[in-house]
């Protein structure tokens, strides 16, 4: 008995020691700041004077500000644009390549390249692709006799431009995850279905889609969180314009906090963003019980 408890103590000691750097980091750089955000929401603070408790004033200000609704609306537009398009394209690509294909590793390397270089530098290249008058895309469209839209100066097209760029960037990553998911579906399911005389479509809808659903679920949840945090694409490509049509919640937080030094109000928006992400993820988990199948 005593030997066992001594052993336990030793295990506990090493366990806590080994996780201590990450635990300290978690407390000081995640949990403490989150708690402080909840406090800041109820204060007025401009950085120079001491924070002042103002109750729910910040909420009143934010919920009456037009920019908040622009940012909220646009963020949802981007979610509705980017998530389905990227999911479908990467799934189709994965389905096409889930077999022996010559040079597949070269294709994979090419598809994933945009994700690796997802930096300001490549947004700059896209800025030129879409630029008015001298833009690359419209020049190419001109060659084949199409007059391209004003990508970055018309609200509708500016949003499309950001959807195109984000899809271009994320597709390769989600493609690789889908492909790994497809490889995880046991062959015998298909063999059994073939014996039953199932055709290609039946196999896809009755085997592939249901058995791939955990992967699809993972992809949708991760992508949603990513799109809710959209920032540098709009910041560099359109600056949030024209007329706030590509202005996102994170840009709004950035402006409130670091342009106008309205820290309390910025905290409100950041917590609202957090709440939306949590809520959407929670709803997805609830819905997932209806459509996600886990193989035992």
């Amino acid at each position, binding site marked *: 008995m005593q030997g066992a408890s001594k052993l*336990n103590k030793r*295990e*506990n000691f*090493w*366990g*806590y020691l*080994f*996780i201590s*750097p*990450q*635990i300290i*980091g*978690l407390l*000081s*750089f*995640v*949990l403490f*700041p989150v708690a402080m*955000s909840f406090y*800041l929401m109820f204060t007025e603070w401009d*950085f120079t004077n001491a924070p002042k408790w103002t109750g729910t004033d910040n909420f009143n200000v934010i919920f009456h500000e037009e920019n908040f609704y622009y940012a909220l609306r646009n963020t949802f537009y981007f979610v509705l644009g980017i998530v389905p398009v990227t999911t479908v394209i990467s799934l189709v690509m994965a389905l*096409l*390549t889930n077999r022996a294909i*010559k040079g597949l590793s070269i294709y994979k*390397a*090419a*598809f*994933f*390249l945009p994700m*690796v*270089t997802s*930096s*300001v*530098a490549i947004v*700059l*290249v896209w800025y*030129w*692709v879409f630029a008015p008058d*001298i833009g*690359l895309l419209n*020049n*190419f469209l001109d060659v084949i006799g199409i007059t391209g839209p004003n990508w970055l100066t018309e609200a509708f097209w500016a949003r499309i431009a950001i959807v195109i760029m984000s899809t*271009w960037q994320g597709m390769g990553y989600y493609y*690789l*995850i889908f492909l*790994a998911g497809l490889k995880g579906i046991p062959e015998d399911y298909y063999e059994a279905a073939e014996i039953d005389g199932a055709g290609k479509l039946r196999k896809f809808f009755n085997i592939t889609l249901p058995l791939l659903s*955990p*992967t699809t*679920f*993972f992809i949708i949840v991760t992508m949603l969180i990513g799109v*809710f*945090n959209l920032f540098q694409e709009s910041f*560099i490509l359109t600056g949030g314009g024209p007329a706030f049509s590509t202005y996102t919640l994170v840009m709004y*937080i*950035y402006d409130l*906090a670091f342009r106008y030094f309205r820290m309390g109000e910025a905290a409100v928006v*950041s*917590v609202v*963003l957090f709440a939306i*992400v949590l809520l959407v993820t929670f709803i997805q988990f609830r819905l997932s019980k209806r459509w996600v199948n886990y193989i035992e």
Partner: protein
Amino acid sequence: MNSSKRGNLLIHVILIIVALTTVFPFYWMITTAVKPSDAIFQVPPQMFPKHFTWDYFPKVFELMPMALAYLNSMKIAVLVTVGTLLTSSIAAYAFAKIQFKGSSMLFGVFLATLMIPGQVTLIPLYILFSKIDWIDTHLPLMVPAIMINAYGVFMIKQFMGSIPNGYIESAKIDGASHPRIYWQIMMPLCKPAIITLGLFTFIGNWNNFFGPLIFLNSEKKFTVPLIISSFKGVYTVDWGLLMAASTVAIVPIIILYLLTQKYYVQGIAMSGMKG
């Protein structure tokens, strides 16, 4: 030609089109950086440069402190990568292989923090760092990134979990302590996961824009993405220059990626598996 061959050909055509789409912007960036300016604005666009110029590249380094930004980015990315690999692998080892009290509960807390968007912690962190005079230093970009990496802990823990306990049991019988088992047995076995996480971390930090944008003010502290962003502000339509600057920022990452890309594919398959 039979139908399956025709199907294969069609797939290759589709794959080539998609691959051209993903690679083309990089091709265009690099070729524009070496085209003389009259060729850049040519309509229809010149697909293959006819004349080459190397004038833009020295300008990138003359007009902005790009060399310094390179050093800054390199320093931050290397230190964060080494640091986060150490702290997250040792925590992952504890969660995977040591039976200590509350381990599964604490691991759950780690996983839960993956849901918290960085923006929620941003404002308090900014306040914290300004109180301790860290604004306009590289510390806010390094210390939190080294000290907390829930994704890293999760990924390496999953990998360690798949290594049989037999290795550890026999080492324990030989009298090895946890630090020795971690360093001499587990770390070599986890090499693929370590390399993958290392690459992700390095590239993520190299590309980081939001953090430097907020925490850095003086140009001599700037990282590469910040310099690129200020290039855009100053030389709005000087495309040759802008594309040369982008090339300088991206090409090292492309080379690193091409050298190590098989680890990516593995690593992503690992991270997606949790489903």
